[in-house]
């Protein structure tokens, strides 16, 4: 078992680097997420790994530890009704409002890509919807690599992915299932720490940030919502998880999903 002071050190590291709220009391959870990483990096134990982090391990290891503590989105079509509404109503409405300009959509904590690919598959089958640009970012390079490869295990493709979507968009390669290049090429990927300054990230018409706020410390969550507000194009929408709280800067605009708009819309800035 990892000693309490080591768990507290790790929690403070996660808070400082990524705004992550890690409960140092949850010894089992911390051990179960850290142990595979410690093994992969050839440390004899999680304690030895944390000891190295304390004594000036290189930045790559520090980030690997922080990333291991973040819980990524890991299911296709999580809350599947949300995706139908996005593809059938929200995105087409945004496309009309943009009048021929591309609709820019950003999955802000994309994990291994299941969320953005779920939307991409629906949009790939809706050719009349107009020009769409999909962006996805995550804190973890490891998750991004997996996402870009579009390669999932049999277990993963059975989490939320309807069988008809599987046969339509995936090929089998050995024991893995690989998403078609057509859908993979719809998405652009980038490593983003949501706690960094996002003022140059650009403007998006729809930002997906589900089940992230609950993992962050309160001040970090407030900072993220503030930054998202600045990255949201006029008339744009923010999709949160069911249990996420949007704060005062956003108002909910859909009865059956956690879709929000800026409470005080900014004027569209001159291009």
């Amino acid at each position, binding site marked *: 078992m990892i000693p309490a002071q080591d768990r507290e050190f790790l929690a403070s590291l996660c808070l400082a680097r990524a705004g992550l709220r890690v409960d140092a009391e949850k010894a089992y959870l911390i051990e179960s997420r850290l142990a595979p990483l410690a093994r992969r990096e050839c440390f004899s134990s999680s304690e030895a790994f944390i000891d190295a982090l304390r004594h000036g391990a290189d930045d790559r290891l520090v980030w690997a530890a922080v990333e291991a503590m973040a819980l990524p989105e890991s*299911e296709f*079509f999580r809350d*599947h009704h949300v995706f139908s509404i996005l593809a059938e109503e929200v995105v087409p409405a945004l496309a009309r409002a943009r009048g021929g300009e591309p609709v820019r959509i950003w999955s802000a904590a994309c994990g291994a890509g299941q969320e953005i690919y779920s939307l991409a598959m629906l949009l790939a089958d809706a050719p009349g919807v107009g020009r769409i640009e999909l962006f996805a970012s995550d804190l973890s390079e490891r998750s991004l690599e997996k996402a870009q490869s579009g390669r999932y295990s*049999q*277990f993963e493709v*059975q*989490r*939320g992915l*309807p*069988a*008809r979507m*599987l*046969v339509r968009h*995936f*090929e*089998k390669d050995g024991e893995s299932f690989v998403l078609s290049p057509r859908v993979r090429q719809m998405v652009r990927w980038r490593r983003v720490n949501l706690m960094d300054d996002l003022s140059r990230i650009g403007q998006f018409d729809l930002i997906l940030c589900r089940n992230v706020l609950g993992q962050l410390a309160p001040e970090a969550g407030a900072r993220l919502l503030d930054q998202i507000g600045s990255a949201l194009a006029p008339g744009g929408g923010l999709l949160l998880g069911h249990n996420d709280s949007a704060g005062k800067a956003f108002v909910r605009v859909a009865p059956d999903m956690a879709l929000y708009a800026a409470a005080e819309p900014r004027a569209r800035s001159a291009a």
Partner: protein
Amino acid sequence: MQTCLVVDDSRVIRKVSRRILEDLGFEVAEASDGVEAMAWCSAVMPDLVLLDWRMPAMDGLEFLKKLRGGPGGDHPKVVFCSVENEIESIREALDAGADEYIMKPFDGGIIAGKLGYLGLVG
């Protein structure tokens, strides 16, 4: 209460499936091949059939085609549950009238997810 017929020649799989489905609120009956399943369906049509592929007497695909072609056979949702995991096999099952497809091994989460998608569990 919604009813489910579990069709599998393995007693162990039937037992595991039964436990998962009962936890999801289904009343469960069992059949060990397509012939038994067909007899059951002509007596009482279930709301859901969880269907293995490779079975003696009558396999899952043959059962499915017979079921869909017969009276009342459109009513049940049919979810294949098989070790067959080639895309072509899955496509064949869906084209024959299956509503969903589960590749073995499965767990309760996978079954609940598929049934949720089909609107059978909340």
